């Protein structure tokens, strides 16, 4: 409870972890607010069905609040004037304003995860895919970090829920703003799942390696961070993990 998990990928695509966490929390009966900035709803829905969860059903019973970034953005850019004034402000409003303030997005997250009287779900969960898109859309790194901070306070501390965020990073990246955000988040996370391609290059049977870092050093005991490294292979409906060097193709 109350944990902040950072999903980080370097030179590869870590979105399979997002799909995993989405179906995991939905199956566990948590109320999930999914800020999906990069792909459309149907993409997540199709993959979730392969993993055994139906997103449409979850949305209908109120367990899942899905913010489809692409659709919101279209409504914002091509929407009619009258619609804007009558309805609520769009969560992606910062795109059209000059002050890059992610408050509207945060308000959206908070209202969707605050439990109403009739809810009987387990703890709330905020899932973001992926944070770098906010930078591409014009938010400053400080605004993004503020947004995450507010979300943490609201979701982790007040509502005792979890937050899972996906970011991309790269050692020799020239995108300084992105690296700033990622570094800062790394320091504040309770759990980091870091997905990378293999150092030896492309391989058909082992798609990459994942480092699981449990930040024991954040707690007040004088422990070191606990690091585990596994390799993985992604299949159509499943991801298999195995110890380094023990891929099925080798044994």
């Amino acid at each position, binding site marked *: 409870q109350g944990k902040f998990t950072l999903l980080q990928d370097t030179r590869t695509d870590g979105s399979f972890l997002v799909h995993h966490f989405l179906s995991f929390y939905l199956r566990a009966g948590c109320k999930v607010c999914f800020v999906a900035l990069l792909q459309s709803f149907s993409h997540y829905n199709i993959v979730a069905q392969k993993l055994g969860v139906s997103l449409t059903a979850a949305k209908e019973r109120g367990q899942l609040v899905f913010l489809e970034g692409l659709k919101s953005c279209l409504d914002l850019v091509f929407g009619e004037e009258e619609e804007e004034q009558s309805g609520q402000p769009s969560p992606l409003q910062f795109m059209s304003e000059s002050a890059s303030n992610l408050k509207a997005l945060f308000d959206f997250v908070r209202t969707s995860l605050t439990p109403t009287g009739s809810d009987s779900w387990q703890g709330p969960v905020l899932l973001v895919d992926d944070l770098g898109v906010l930078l591409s*859309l014009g938010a400053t790194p400080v605004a993004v970090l503020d947004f995450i901070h507010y979300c943490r306070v609201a979701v982790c501390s007040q509502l005792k829920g979890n937050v899972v965020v996906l970011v991309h990073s790269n050692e020799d*990246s020239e995108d300084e703003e992105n690296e700033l955000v990622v570094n800062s988040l790394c320091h504040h996370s309770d759990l980091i799942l870091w997905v990378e391609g293999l150092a030896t290059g492309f391989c058909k049977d082992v798609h990459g390696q994942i480092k699981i870092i449990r930040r024991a050093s954040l707690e007040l005991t004088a422990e070191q961070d606990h690091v585990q490294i596994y390799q993985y292979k992604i299949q159509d409906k499943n991801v298999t993990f195995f110890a380094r060097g023990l891929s099925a193709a080798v044994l």
Partner: protein
Amino acid sequence: LVFTEEDKYGLYSNLLFKYFLAEGVVCGHDLFVASAKDHPDNILKELPAPLLDDTHRHELGEEATAVKSEDFQDSMKIAWRYQNLPKVEASPTTSTKFGHYYDVSKTMSPELSQSIKWHSFYLPEELSSQPKMKTCNMNSAYARLLHSIQRIIYQEGFDGSDPQKKQKTILRIGIQSLGSMLWGDDICSSDTPEDIHSLTKFLYVLRGLLRKSLSACIITVPAHLIQNKAIMERVTNLSDTVVGLESFIGSERETNPLYKDYHGLVHVHQIPRLNSLICDVSDTKDLAFRLKRKLFTIERLHLPPDLSDTVSRASKQDLAESAKLLSSGCGAMAIGKKHLDF
């Protein structure tokens, strides 16, 4: 959303662009062509003509049979272990046919190109006509283009919003040389551009439009001119497919014997991973292209045989470096179709 990084002189990326549009014509799709440089009418006049099936298959068939007959005659004596491995094919067999082939030396007949519905967006014309519109802090040229695309999608019913206009075809959108100075964006000319978010915002909104409608889009960008590499990283993240073309014209690689059969390299930076956990993987990521008189082909890059008498080649150093460059690539799975058919 297919994002193409242009080669230095834009020769080959233009060719790829035209192939995309020509395929649209042949398949009966609608076209939308946007450019700030060449008038879309001219672009459409220069599309390559499709090859008639029988002649080309005949040619390919001839090559394939010629190769086969040679091999059966002599079985390997020294490297006999390799005999059992499947033959590496530089170009595909005719059994899997996807798309059409085009003859670069001829242009498409006007009857064929007029047979489909096409829309155009030529920036110098548009700038003078349209009234001001909501821009979301984006470059006004990009905003106009977006509104134009959205209007076509809505009017022609590609987004399914109007139940009466059922669309049976898709819209192929081609945008040429985006991000160049002709579009009013200074990311190609200065190190600290005025608005680094314009291009990425444009791409995000475009992505939303494409996801919501029956359309596909190819964009070519003079990536070598963009000074701020952060933009390229963000753009890669926002696109489905990213392909870079590197031509050997004017570079030191032109004389490198490693590349003597080819005109350039194809770098596949990203492939789409849509609606599934995995994406298609192929064996190789080293692709090169060459422009023959009639065909533009993309093949696996293979080293020419080392037939020199001297023990050490002067260029062995270069070879090692090139080989390193080729295999590092991206950790993400990259698809390399052995022969990209257009």
